[in-house]
């Protein structure tokens, strides 16, 4: 009943891209910056197949947005990666003894979407290494470059998926093709 209810109320999209982070803490805003970039470059024919979400942090109700989608890409900033580098990995579900509060991870939101709504999307988390998380609404130059690169890569993935082609987003090339060539 619930999946039908959700599918009836939320327009089905093939791919959901969620960029999250604090836009007032410099490079922590890399996720929302990728969403902003994608919003500006996605042509209408692709935009209809994609939902782009920008948020401060992951929250439980995102499970509802995830439920009708085939693919999810979470975009986050990381202090563990070298500044400006990009890492893309499949999301591992996290549940069991997780004490979920006001804050969620891609794994917990995905697990919630599966267990509550029967969703089985393919999901990846793309992380951009931070240089600075000091108080600022500007990205550092290396991270700004990485944001541009990741946005082009996600664009490329969406374009390939829209043609029914297989594409594994974790295979990040050294340089993305120009947008007009996609």
């Amino acid at each position: 009943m619930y999946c039908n209810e959700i599918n009836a109320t939320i327009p089905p999209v093939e791919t959901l891209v969620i960029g999250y982070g604090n836009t007032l803490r410099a490079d922590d805003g890399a996720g929302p910056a990728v969403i902003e970039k994608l919003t500006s470059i996605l042509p209408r024919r692709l935009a209809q197949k994609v939902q782009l979400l920008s948020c401060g942090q992951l929250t439980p109700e995102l499970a509802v947005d995830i439920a009708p989608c085939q693919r999810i890409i979470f975009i986050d900033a990381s202090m563990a990666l070298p500044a400006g580098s990009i890492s893309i990995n499949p999301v591992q579900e996290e549940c069991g003894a997780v004490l979920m509060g006001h804050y969620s991870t891609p794994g917990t939101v995905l697990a919630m979407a599966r267990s509550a709504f029967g969703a089985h999307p393919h999901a990846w988390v793309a992380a951009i290494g931070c240089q600075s998380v000091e108080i600022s609404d500007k990205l550092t130059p290396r991270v700004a470059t990485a944001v541009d690169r990741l946005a082009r890569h996600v664009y490329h993935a969406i374009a390939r998926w829209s043609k029914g082609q297989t594409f594994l987003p974790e295979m990040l090339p050294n340089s993305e093709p120009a947008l007009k060539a996609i």
Partner: protein
Amino acid sequence: MTRTITIDGVTRIEGHAKITIHLDESGKVCDAQFHVTQFRGFEKFVEGRPLTEMPGIMARICGICPVSHLMAAAKACDDILAVDIPPTADKLRRIMNLAQMVQSHALSFFHLSSPDLLFGMDGDPLRRNIFGLIREHPDFARDGILLRKFGQDVIALLGGKKIHPAWVVPGGVNAPLTEDKRDAILKEIPAAMARVNRALDYFHQVENRYPAEVDAFANFPTHFAGLVNPEGLLEHYDGAMKFVDHQGFPIAELGRNDQRHYGALIGEAVEKYSYLKFPYFKPQGYPAGIYRVGPLARLIVAERCGTVNADKELGVFRTRLGRAPQSSFHYHWARLIEILYGIEMIQRLLQFPDILNTHIRSRARPNRLEGVGISEAPRGTLIHHYKIDENGLIRWANLIIATGHNNLAMNLGVRQVAERFVDAEHLSEGMLNRVEAVIRCFDPCLSCSTHALGQMPLRIELCRADGEVCDVLQRD
């Protein structure tokens, strides 16, 4: 040998905190403290910023409930501009504030507290969590997720985004409501009503399983405070701040036009062990002037809700518990009643003929050098007080946050539940969970109350009389 048990930090609340429980030489609880261990200091760093930036800056206090700070900040700015905002803007702000309450209460009840209620305080922690809830009570869990989404979607439809919408501005709001957005919200009302009604049915089945917790979860006489409208009904956006005693009898009221004088009724004390201030009812002094705010307090302070279904449920609540129930365990039920009220009131406000009007902002330059905004956040009364200079720059700010009002009661509550449940010779997870659960009744948001950011792990320390830690229990 006296000992101290420390819970550091408390889980399933927002922010960083720890609890210490001091034991005397016979192993009995002799004291307990709720420490808020984070600090951010918004009051200080807004100094020098333009008044017009305040709603946007203050909303950043919390990524979970920014709307509440947006409202109080905008109202304080309205006061400095000395404007009455247009009636349509008033209604639109109310809708957003109620949507915030619905989503926040849904998270608190369904995600944070209901695992304790449905699986028991001593239930296996591997099961007593949101995923256990989804496995064993899937419809209930989905209702919680979808109710929260309802509130978040209303905020996003009005403000353009769920988190930190910049739509509420000094003098009103910056965009009118469109017909399609109004209809989109109205379309979701019946489903949201059905969900909260099912939750109330669930709650009625489990609530009477916890007589010991009802008896010991911050169950003591205090005053209560909250906003009421001119008819004395439940109010969340704008009204008089009313204080009642433990029996529900009025003891003081801060009129809608007297809010700059809140300092006559509310004092703020500081303790060395916490960054969270301790507001108190000033006529009674500190710490005797203990009072509570939030959903339970609001239902005690108000004569009634003012909507059909919420009033019906409030009637059941009062028949069962009396006019002024003292146990903080009843915050859970009060939260569900307020969700019901919030949905009904959003529907009512959307049906006003002027709700689509485009006159939504009053414009003025500062006409006063000082302003106060008081509104109800999900957790209780929220006060923003600003002073500006002749150039419109903030020179002083004071915030009194809902969680702060409840600080004295939370500390006493921790002590009460520790006295009842903690056996120092046989520490158990369920015992310590109850100590945390009494805090969760208040649904404290420590990010707001200290203006800090974070999530909350758990650490419990057991200390001997000489202060040496002899046992630790830690959750991450």
